[in-house]
C-alpha cells in the first residue's frame, strides 16, 4: 500500500499557553478525500495551518508527499490551499490576482495564460476578470480564492471550510474538482461543518475534539465506532463521539 500523502503524527500546538492541538494524528491516503470534523475551536484550522506551513508546530511530525513540512518546503508547489475566510488583495483585479498566484506557483507564458483562463471559466469568473476584488460579493471572492488554490493543478488539496459563502452551483464545481484530484491519485483534506458533505464526498474522516483526534475512519466505520447502525446519521454519530 502506498504511503499516505499527508501524515500528521502527535501534533501539539498552543497559543500563549492555551493548547489548541494536543497530540493529534491523522493520515490521508493517495486517491482519497479526507474530512476533518469538529466543533468550533476544536483545532481544525490550527492543524491545517501547521500542515501548509503557516504555523510552526510546537511538537510532532508532519509530512506531505513524504517531505517533512518543517525542514523541506519543496512540497509547497504540490499543494493547493484555501484558508477559512481568505483575505485577498482587494486592490487587484481578479485576473491580476490569479496571474500573481500563478507566477508564485511557477507558471509562466502560455501555461500561465491557459491556467488562468481555465480556472476562471470553471468558476464562472470570466466576466469578472477585469473587476477589482474589492467590489465582489463574498461568494465571488470565495470563488476567486478557490480558483487560486487550483490554478497550478495541485496534486494535494487542503481546504478549510471551502463551502463558506458558495452558492450550490459553485459548491458542485468545488466538489467535482475535489473528486477529480482524488481520482487522479492525489489527496484532498477538507475541513467542514457540513456533515452531509462529508457523507457524500469524503472517503474517510477524522473527528477532532478539544485538539485531540477522537475517531477516524470511513463514514460507516465512524457510525460503528459511535455504536450506531449503518442507517443512523453522521450527525448522531458525531455528537455521540464528542460527548464521550
Amino acid at each position: 500500500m502506498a504511503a499516505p500523502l499527508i501524515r500528521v503524527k502527535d501534533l501539539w500546538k498552543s497559543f500563549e499557553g492555551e493548547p489548541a492541538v494536543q497530540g493529534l494524528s491523522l493520515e490521508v491516503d493517495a486517491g482519497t478525500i479526507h474530512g476533518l470534523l469538529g466543533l468550533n475551536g476544536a483545532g481544525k484550522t490550527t492543524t491545517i495551518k501547521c500542515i501548509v506551513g503557516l504555523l510552526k508546530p510546537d511538537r510532532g511530525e508532519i509530512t506531505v508527499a513524504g517531505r517533512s513540512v518543517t525542514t523541506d518546503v519543496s512540497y509547497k508547489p504540490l499543494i493547493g490551499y484555501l484558508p477559512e475566510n481568505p483575505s485577498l488583495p482587494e486592490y487587484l483585479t481578479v485576473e491580476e490576482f490569479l496571474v500573481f498566484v500563478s507566477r508564485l506557483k511557477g507558471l509562466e507564458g502560455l501555461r500561465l495564460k491557459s491556467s488562468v483562463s481555465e480556472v476562471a471559466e470553471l468558476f464562472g469568473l470570466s466576466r469578472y476578470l477585469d473587476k477589482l476584488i474589492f467590489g465582489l460579493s463574498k461568494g465571488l471572492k470565495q470563488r476567486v480564492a478557490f480558483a487560486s488554490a487550483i490554478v497550478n493543478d495541485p496534486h494535494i488539496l487542503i481546504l478549510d471550510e471551502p463551502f463558506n459563502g458558495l452558492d450550490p452551483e459553485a459548491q458542485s464545481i468545488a466538489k467535482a474538482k475535489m473528486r477529480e484530484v482524488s481520482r487522479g491519485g492525489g489527496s484532498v483534506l477538507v475541513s467542514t461543518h457540513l456533515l452531509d458533505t462529508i457523507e457524500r464526498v469524503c472517503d474517510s474522516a477524522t473527528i477532532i475534539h478539544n485538539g485531540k483526534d477522537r475517531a477516524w475512519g470511513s463514514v460507516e466505520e465512524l457510525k460503528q465506532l459511535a455504536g450506531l447502525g449503518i442507517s443512523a446519521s453522521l450527525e448522531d454519530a458525531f455528537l455521540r463521539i464528542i460527548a464521550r
Partner: protein
Amino acid sequence: MRIALTLFSVKVRHYLGPLIRRPRYLLSLVLMYVLWLSVTGLFSLAMRFSGIVSGSGPSGFLPVLSEITVTAVLATGIYLGIKGGITAFPYEIDFVVASYVRARIFLFSDLLFQFLLLSLFIFPPVTLMITTLTFPWHVDYLVRSLPTYAVAISAAILLSHVLGLSRVKLGDRGSRALGWALMVAVLVPLLLLALRVPKPDAMRYHPAVILSNVIRGDITDVYVVAPYIFLLTLIYLHLSRANFYPSVTPVLISALMEQPTKISRYFKFPTFVTKVVGLRNSGDLTSLMYALHLMRVVREGSLLSGITVLVFLTLGNIAVPRMMGGFQFSELAQLTMIALYVPLLPALLAINWSISERKNIWVVKLSPGTERHYLTGLLLTYVTVSFPFSLLLYGVVALGSSELPFLAVDLVLLFAMSYFGSALATLTSLMVRIGSSPLSLGSMVFISIPLIGSILLSLPILMIRTFEPLASSPTPALIANMLIYTGITTIVLYKALVSEGARYLN
C-alpha cells in the same frame, strides 16, 4: 439625546479599546503625548528664541503660527470629509445603521466623538505652544485662543460632516471634487505665501485668517467669522435631513491612515511600465513583488494620503519663514527640513501595509523562498516613492530659493533619509504589530523609529550639511566618503531586512 450619548460613549470605548482597560496601553498613550508635546514644545522654544534674537515679540509670530495651525485644523476636517466624513466603525454599520436609530441622532453622536478626538490631539500642544510663545502674557492669549480653536475644531467637524452628507446629493465623485476644491480654498493663504504672492485684501475674509486674527487679539473679527459658522450650520442642518445611512462607510479605523472604501476607477500602469514591472512580465519574483506593492500603494490611496501630509508639511516649511517677516531663517535650512521629514512617507505607507496588507501574506507564504523577494519589493517600492518625491519637493523649494543649494551633499542626504527611512519603516512594520487601539504604542513607534532612526543614521551627512565651507564646496574625497558611508549602511540595512525580516513575515 440619551441614545446619542449612549452611542457616543460606546464609540469612545470602542475607539480607545484596550487603552482604557490595560495599564500597558495607557502607558503607551502617555508616551505618545510626551513625544507629541516634546516636539511641539521644542519647536515653540526654538521660535521663541529666534524671536528674541530677531527682536520680534509674541504679536509678531503668534498670528503666523495660528494661521498655520488653524489652517491645519480646517484641512484635517476637509480631509476626513473627503474620506467619508462620518466616522462609522464596522459594528455601527452592522448594528446601529441597520437599527431604528434616527440618522440625525447617529450624526450628533459622531459630532461629539469627532470633537473629542480632534480636541485630544489639538488642545494640549496648542496650550503648550501658546504658553511657551507668549509667557508671561500667556493667560490673556490662552483665554482668547482656546475658544477660537474650539470654534475651528467645530468648523472642521461641520465641514467633514457636510462633505460626508453631500454624497447623498452629489454622489461620491461630486462630493470628492467639492472636498478638494474646499481644500485648495483653505490652503490659499499658505499657497500665496509659499509662492511669494502678496496677500490680496480679500484674503482678510478667509476663515483661517480671521480666526488667527482673533487669536492675535482682533476681537472684532469674531463678527466676521460668525456668518461663516451660521451658514455652515444651516447647510449642515439642511443636509442632515436626508437619509445618509446608505452612504456611510467605515472611516478612521486607524490613527493616521485608512483605506479608501470605494475604488471606483483604478489606476493602471502605462504599457511601457508594465513591460518592466508588471505582474505579467517575465521578470524575476522581485519585480513581481515590486509591481504588486506599487499597485497597492497607488490604488488603495496610501500614497496619496502620504503625499498630502508631506505637501502640507512643505507648505508650512516654506510659509513659516516668509510669514515671520521680522526674521529670516535660512532658505538652505528649509531644504534640510525636507530631508528630515521625508521618512514620514514610508512610515505612513508602512502603517497602511500593517493594517491592510499583512493579512494577505498567506498568499505569498505558500510558495517557498518568496519572502526575500517580497521584502525587497516592499523596500524598493518605499524608496521608489520617497526618493523621487523628496527630490521633487526639494526642486520646488530650491527653485524659489535665493540661495544656491548644496547640491551634491543634499542629494546624498535626500537619498540616505529616503532609503534609511524606508528600510526602518519596513523593519518596524514587520516587527511591531499595530495594536487594536489607534492610539497604541505601535502607532507611535511606526512614526518615531523611521524618523529618529534615519536622522541618527544620516548624522555624518547632516553634520557635513551644517558646516558651510564643507557643504558648499565638498572635496571629491569628502563626496566619496559620504557615498561609501551611505553605500555600506544601505547594504547593511538591506541584509538585516532580508535576513531578519523574513522571520517576522506572518
